[in-house]
């Protein structure tokens, strides 16, 4: 692992991983869509709208996974000052924000026909909205502070403080009365979803996870290159100044 945490080795590994990840994600996406639309049956209560679950639930999981990744990377930045830790955190923020937005929008589109409303200020929906705002805050913080070290430390503090929202999202449906249904997959006593739907959901969850990893590796590579470009541009300016004197 320590050798992979070297930026140059990471770039080398990313170059070899990306084509395989992209191919595997595309194949699983096709399989997942087939299972979601042609194999999984309609729900006895929710009818065909249950098919929204196959994109909504994996997006919501990845939204929380992304922030957990940022919180762990933030520890790497603050404690070990590892050069890849804040690269990983910075690269994960827009991806996590996108998956959170997908979870919010698809949840709204599922809520209207089932609950009769697009939005309600219940604990699960509100805590997911807070997660989206935290992601936007992290992106804004990275843009606002020019010096990379300071930006990384400030974002790491926000990343760690905001991590308190993750258990709140997870347990919101148990701690408060919510319109959102309680946990039906990751729960003590096993999933309550029928196995005919669980297969499609599992394939879509693996697909979304691979998609997240693929986009994250690509975004990390771009960020490492951006830092190299920035360092080289500074050297170019220094050389020009020396040549003038």
């Amino acid at each position: 692992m320590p050798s992979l945490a070297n930026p140059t080795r990471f770039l080398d590994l990313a170059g070899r991983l990306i084509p395989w990840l992209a191919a595997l994600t595309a194949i699983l996406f096709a399989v997942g869509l087939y299972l979601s639309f042609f194999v999984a049956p309609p729900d006895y209560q929710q009818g065909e709208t249950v098919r929204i679950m196959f994109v909504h639930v994996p997006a919501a999981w990845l939204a929380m996974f992304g922030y957990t990744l940022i919180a762990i990377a933030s520890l790497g930045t603050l404690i070990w000052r590892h050069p890849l830790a804040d690269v990983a955190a910075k690269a994960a923020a827009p991806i996590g924000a996108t998956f959170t937005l997908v979870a919010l929008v698809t949840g709204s589109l599922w809520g209207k026909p089932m609950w009769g409303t697009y939005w309600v200020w219940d604990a699960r929906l509100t805590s997911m909205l807070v997660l989206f705002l935290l992601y936007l805050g992290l992106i804004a913080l990275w843009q606002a502070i020019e010096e990379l070290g300071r930006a990384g430390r400030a974002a790491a503090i926000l990343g760690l403080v905001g991590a308190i929202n993750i258990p709140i999202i997870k347990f919101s449906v148990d701690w408060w009365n919510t319109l959102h249904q309680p946990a039906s997959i990751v729960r003590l006593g096993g999933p309550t979803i029928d196995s005919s739907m669980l297969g499609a959901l599992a394939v879509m969850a693996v697909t979304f996870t691979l998609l997240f990893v693929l986009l994250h590796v690509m975004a990390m590579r771009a960020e490492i290159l951006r830092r190299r470009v920035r360092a080289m541009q500074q050297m170019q300016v220094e050389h020009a100044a020396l040549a003038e004197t």
Partner: protein
Amino acid sequence: MPDLGPHAAFILAAYGFTFAAVAALAFFIVADDRKQRQLLADLEAKGIRRRSANTAGASKPARGRKP
């Protein structure tokens, strides 16, 4: 495509938004990656090298890093 019933518009909108959002994100990440590669190639073509590349093998490596 199976008959999606009276709520077909909601189902298709959910999938459509998911694809659009993920495609937009992937487009920006790929475009950024290509832009940084191009900038790096331009700088290297001008003979600019990173300090670590210039000193590789000549100086003692930092603690915990590969040379």
